[in-house]
């Protein structure tokens, strides 16, 4: 019920009049799925590399992703968006990806981070373009949030590069494969 919402919006339910519901629905659903997946990826990486030298850095990036997820949880309730059915699947797949890349070593984990964060920033950029084309004024709040998150993900990408992601075993193959997976995940989560 409305009341006691911790959002910056004035009520738990934003006014749903006049917004392009299908477009906003998709955006929030896929972003929520993305942040959820990112969370699980970092969780998987921490499970393997938590006690290594890159542990604190991964933890820091993970904390930021947790904040992102919290924000999208709020937006999901406010805009009455349905979450993707595939959440349980992303739960497992994300963890496996994170743990799997971490088993390749610290550089492997960083390579995974670089690949995923690059996909996510491109994806956020195209969403920003879409919203700007629709109506920058109407979606000002949402645009602000996505821009901020895009900048955060960009930062993670750069941190990954700083920590020798490119020196990881089979870096280009790994990166391509992961980014292909991200594209598929985005496609599916937008629709189902």
């Amino acid at each position: 019920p409305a009341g006691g919402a911790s959002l910056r919006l004035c009520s738990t339910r934003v006014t749903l009049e006049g917004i392009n519901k299908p477009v906003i629905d998709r955006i929030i659903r896929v972003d929520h799925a993305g942040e959820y997946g990112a969370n699980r990826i970092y969780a998987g990486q921490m499970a393997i590399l938590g006690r290594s030298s890159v542990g604190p850095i991964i933890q820091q990036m993970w904390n930021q992703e947790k904040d992102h997820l919290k924000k999208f949880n709020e937006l999901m309730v406010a805009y009455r968006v349905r979450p993707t059915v595939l959440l349980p699947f992303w739960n497992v797949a994300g963890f496996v990806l994170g743990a799997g890349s971490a088993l390749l070593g610290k550089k492997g984990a960083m390579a995974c981070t670089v690949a995923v964060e690059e996909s996510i920033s491109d994806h956020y950029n195209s969403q920003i373009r879409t919203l700007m084309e629709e109506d920058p004024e109407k979606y000002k709040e949402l645009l602000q949030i996505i821009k901020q998150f895009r900048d955060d993900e960009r930062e993670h990408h750069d941190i990954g590069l700083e920590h020798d992601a490119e020196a990881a075993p089979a870096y280009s193959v790994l990166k391509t494969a992961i980014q292909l997976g991200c594209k598929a995940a985005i496609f599916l989560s937008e629709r189902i």
Partner: protein
Amino acid sequence: VKCQLYPPQRALQASAVLRRVSDEQKKEPLASSSQQQFDSHPTDHQPEKEPQGPRPSYTGQGGQESEDYESEEQLQHRILTAALEFVPEHGWTAEAIAEGAKALGLSVAAAGMFHSDGSELILHFVSQCNTKLSELLEQEQKLVQLGKAEKKPTDQFLRDAVEARLRMLIPYIEKWPQAVSILLLPHNIPSSLNLLTSMIDDIWQYAGDQSTDFNWYTRRAVLTGIYNTTELVMMQDSSPDFEETWRFLENRVADAMNMGNTANQVQSTGEAVVQGLMGAAVTVSN
């Protein structure tokens, strides 16, 4: 939720027939309308007659439109609403629609605008009931926000919402099995499913559901099951004021709540077991 009405394929013919065969004066045919491909004659020829619903504001369109101009869709809504009165007698049929049109002072042939199996009438009714339910829940929520009413516990809320919605069927309960079977026809399934899911989503929304994980689906699936089974029970219930149905509903909602609790218990037991095993592993390795 707007009920999807079938496009007016026979509209051109039908609209010509809509004119009442009597000495009422006819207004000028309207020059332009983006919604229609034919001339529409306003049927509301009595200026004092109140419109059934909000009229679109077609201001500034050459000043030719009369004040009582209504769109085809609004006309259809009016006919269908009027037709509901005749459903207990005629069932969900074209006859009921024809009677409804007659009651509004239109030609009986207006029923030709609609499908012959009464689909639109049923969908219109369901859509209307859902809207009424939303309004009811909205009002209740306002009362709680203003502090004038207590916030109900979830099971009570769900019970009351489903009961309120099902009670709207009571005047038509004799003919409701017919309606359900028509709604299950393949060409109606998209619309009826849409109406059902949005109603269930509405109820959970007002019940305060804020889940953003798979629970979102579980809760809606469970409530849909409760609603559908209770509806079936209601159609066969002959007890006074359907008290058997409400008791059935109460039991099903209680089951659902227990299911939730049991799931939580299983999860916490599982977590405890895992922790125990981890502890054992650490002990053994030391």
